[in-house]
């Protein structure tokens, strides 16, 4: 029972971070219809930048956080302006592959600047473990989940009440109509990329504060695709529901199946198996909008 609780709590909290990465995907998909496959690269690069600011430069925590967020905004703007904007109205395949090229570039950049593969962040949160019933959870997990939830709340409110958020939703609905209303679509796109970069930066910092900083963070970013696929691509609620489900499946599955089948590393493959299963059964996810196509 204690084991079950332990796995569940870890799973749900890590799942919240996955949900955050998924949220960053949904932000871009919702407003501009671009599938951002460079998520892994973004998560990777921002967590390493955070490490560089905090440890290598030696800035205080709040300042390095601010620097990372500003850099994230700048990155988002640059990516949208120079990679995505020239490709507006190109086939979807080009839009997907341009983000793949971006992913390649960001991974190379991380190796270029930080060849040392593995690094440790100093603990960002108090290290005394929390006791929940019989389970013992490190505070970092709980904090990460709380921060994810807060961000989720802020973004939901932003999309519901803020003028820019409403404009973003409108753009997702009908670009032509939005342009006719005098909303600058291009600035909507760059705002969504900037927001998405900020969200993935925070997710990267949270996940690297829990599980250490390696170049394998790219795979964490790729795992988050199972969240968006399960939740439905264009749904925030989908992300926040599917994230913990993926986290739970990952942790419970590997915790229970590993002793039975004797294979290690099940954790790394369960999200991908979930992707395949979801695509077979319910390809548009739990909350996704089913698109009906016409010729």
């Amino acid at each position: 029972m204690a084991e079950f609780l332990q796995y569940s709590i870890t799973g749900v909290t890590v799942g919240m971070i996955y949900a955050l990465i998924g949220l960053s995907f949904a932000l871009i998909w919702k407003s501009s219809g671009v599938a951002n496959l460079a998520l892994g690269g973004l998560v990777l690069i921002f967590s390493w930048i955070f490490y560089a600011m905090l440890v290598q430069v030696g800035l205080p925590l709040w300042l390095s956080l601010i620097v990372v967020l500003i850099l994230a905004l700048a990155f988002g703007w640059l990516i949208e302006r120079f990679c995505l904007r020239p490709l507006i109205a190109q086939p979807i395949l080009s839009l997907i592959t341009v983000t793949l090229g971006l992913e390649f570039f960001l991974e190379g950049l991380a190796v270029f600047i930080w060849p040392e593969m593995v690094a440790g962040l100093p603990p960002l949160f108090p290290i005394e473990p929390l006791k929940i019933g019989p389970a013992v959870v490190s505070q970092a997990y709980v904090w990460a989940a709380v921060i994810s939830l807060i961000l989720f709340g802020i973004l939901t409110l932003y999309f519901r009440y803020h003028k820019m958020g409403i404009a973003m939703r409108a753009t997702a609905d009908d670009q032509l109509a939005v342009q006719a209303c005098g909303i600058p679509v291009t600035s909507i796109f760059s705002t969504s990329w900037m927001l998405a970069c900020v969200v993935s930066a925070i997710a990267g910092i949270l996940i690297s504060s829990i599980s250490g900083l390696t170049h394998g963070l790219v795979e964490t970013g790729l795992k988050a695709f199972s969240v968006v696929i399960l939740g439905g691509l264009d749904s925030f609620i989908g992300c926040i529901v599917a994230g913990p489900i993926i986290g739970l499946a990952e942790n419970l599955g590997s915790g229970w199946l590993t002793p039975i089948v004797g294979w290690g590393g099940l954790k790394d493959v369960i999200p991908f198996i979930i992707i395949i299963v979801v695509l077979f059964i319910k390809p548009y996810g739990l909350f996704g909008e089913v698109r009906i196509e016409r010729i």
Partner: protein
Amino acid sequence: MGLPCGTYNYSYAKDMAILRTKTHWALFIALLILVFTAPLYCDNYLLGVANLMGITLIAAVGLNILLGYCGQLSIGHAGFIAVGAYTAAVLTGTFELPFLVGLICAGLMAGLVGLFFGIPSLKVKGFYLGIATIAAQFIIIWFINHLSITGGFTGIAVPYASIGGFVFDTEASQFYLIMTIAVLCVFFAKNLARTRIGRAFVAIRDNDLAAEVMGINLFYYKLLAFFIGCFLAGIAGSLLAHWIGFMNAEQFSISESILYIGMVIIGGMGSALGPILGVIFIRLLQQGMMFIAPMLESAFPALPAGFASGIAPMLFGVVIVLFLVLEPRGLSHRWMLFKASYRLWPFSY
């Protein structure tokens, strides 16, 4: 000297021919002779590069059929190559079956795995399919690492290819084997595009709903595209296994898959020439970087330590993005433009 003012065709067969004039034939045969006599005047290093290019070309031709002709995105091509490579490795290494049996089985196995992961393509497309194939890549590599028959993380040794007692144990002999199969594959792909199947693929790429309305069986043709594409990937994998002699799942990472997509895009999607140009471009770039990066590193000690290993992926990323932004139709389109302007020179049109 009488210059021809056009190419006249007196029969339908002549009109359909790939090589239409005597000059075409002469150039084509000269090219073949040039390629197949390469071992006479190239050293082992160059032959090794050529072998890698030949193997890559077979896989890229497969991806071009899938992505360029049929429009089905596959970001897991390295995974399907791995299936072929390990099938060949296990069959010829552990079970000591002949090379040709291993080659065919590698293709079939990769094709079947591709069929399975291609099934979602019936319901979804674009990004969803990309994700499905990324998942396929990770699942395949994970299984290779955890099954006992594939040697797990330590890898598996593969014997040299041999046909009827002749062992392909030098770079030169392997060059002949690989180039023969590569030429056959390019020939197959070029002709496939001209058949009913190829035209159905193109129709599906351009608009799959319209294609279905016109009587093309989507279920059949989409899966056929996956099967053919992955079959060629499996063939390439088998040759790769015999060429390297040692298989480890790290050779088939997701970056490799992205690189294959890059090759097809840089070369030009949906043309027979595209994969050839793309493969030569990317592999030459890779070799050039391997050559130049250490030199730059020793010349400029101020460069960060990760320069040599990090610069190549950065460059590939930039090249892919630049090609998509500036020349989405790839190098083969440039070649067409060059040919057209050459034909009309000195007139502009």
